[in-house]
């Protein structure tokens, strides 16, 4: 649902970087999207194509690196992988988990010319 504003935020970060780095075309953009970040990848790709029209990123290919959700169990202290917020710890069944990875979304790097 908010993929259009994510796409606009990504374009803005690209344009900021182009002022600092002086490049004229973006070929590839690598994003890291956490599994828990509630981002619909297909929708993000769609809106990225829409918002980058007539911009320096209009030719850009979007590479999305999915970051696995990881949490620490508050009860047994083990690190576990989780695909959603409502999973229970597979070791002890406790559902009080502290997410340590996979809830963010970052623009990682770009290939430009």
């Amino acid at each position, binding site marked *: *649902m*908010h993929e*259009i*504003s*994510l796409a*606009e*935020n*990504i374009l*803005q*970060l690209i344009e*900021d*970087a182009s002022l*600092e*780095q002086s*490049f004229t075309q973006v*070929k590839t953009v690598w*994003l890291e999207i956490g599994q*828990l*970040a*509630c981002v619909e990848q297909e929708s993000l790709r769609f809106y990225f194509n829409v918002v980058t029209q007539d911009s320096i990123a209009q030719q850009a290919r979007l590479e999305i690196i999915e970051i696995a959700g990881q949490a620490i169990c*508050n009860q047994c202290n083990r690190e576990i992988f989780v695909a*959603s*917020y*409502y999973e229970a710890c597979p070791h002890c069944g406790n*559902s*009080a988990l502290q997410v340590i990875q996979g809830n*963010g*979304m*970052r*623009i*990682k*790097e*770009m*290939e*430009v*010319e």
Partner: protein
Amino acid sequence: MCTTCGCHTGKARINGKSISHHQHSDKPMYYQLVDSSRSHPHAAMPAAQLPNTFYFGTNTTDTHDPAMDQTKMIKIERDILVKNNQYAAKNRHYFMKHGIFVLNMVSSPGSGKTSLLIKTIQMLCDKLPIAVIEGDQQTDHDAARIRATGVPAIQINTGKGCHLNAHMVNHAIQQLPLEDDSLLFIENVGNLVCPSAFDLGEAHKVVVLSVTEGEDKPLKYPDMFHAADLMLLNKCDLLPHLTFDTDLAIEYAQRIHPEIPVIQLSATQGNGISAWLDWIKTGHHSAVLKKQSLLHNNITLD
């Protein structure tokens, strides 16, 4: 879009006027972050974010001039919502400095946010100053409903946008008469999905679930129930007419967010409201104390 921040304001309007891009600098709202003990780790944003550059794809034994090869890799390593988070940090510092306790009210459309705010204002407005920011895609009906209670309200219309962002709120708070030690409610656009991702600078997100919606909303929209610090179960006056399983709804919410406090109430009948008011007063009191201790210790935020 506002070119100074890049947050998606789209066709957003505040009290019917489109957002002008120069207002942020009118008021001194650019604070240095000094408090690292805050529990919102994403708010701090170092200013120096110049990306590193390195070249790739050129064979080191190759004799051709690497400058001729125009392709290069640029490291960015920034949160996609960095701009929103910078505004949120600014808003939060403004609120902290002025002892303003801010709640970001989120729910599906029609869960009773505006009704609940009206009831809450009626019960509290002789005890503390209150202001409201209303977010809706269209119309200023909700701001008008709030103003009828006598407290100031600003309407933000997000147009097609399905959530408020910190930039819109930054504009709105410059137009509101906001007193020190006051209470500010932000009613977000009715939507259980993306408002969870956009920090506005609030002290807490409060999620409203009404008993006409189905017990499994927390499982269907886990991000929101994870992001909220309090759940209000509204329209409890209707329970005798429904098959809604209250315990099950609370169990689902706590599966997503262990120990999230839940208050059962009715915005229209007033049952359960006092627990909610107590929760507000506690938070408001600590916001005021926090401001005083900053003043007392002579910590300047600007």
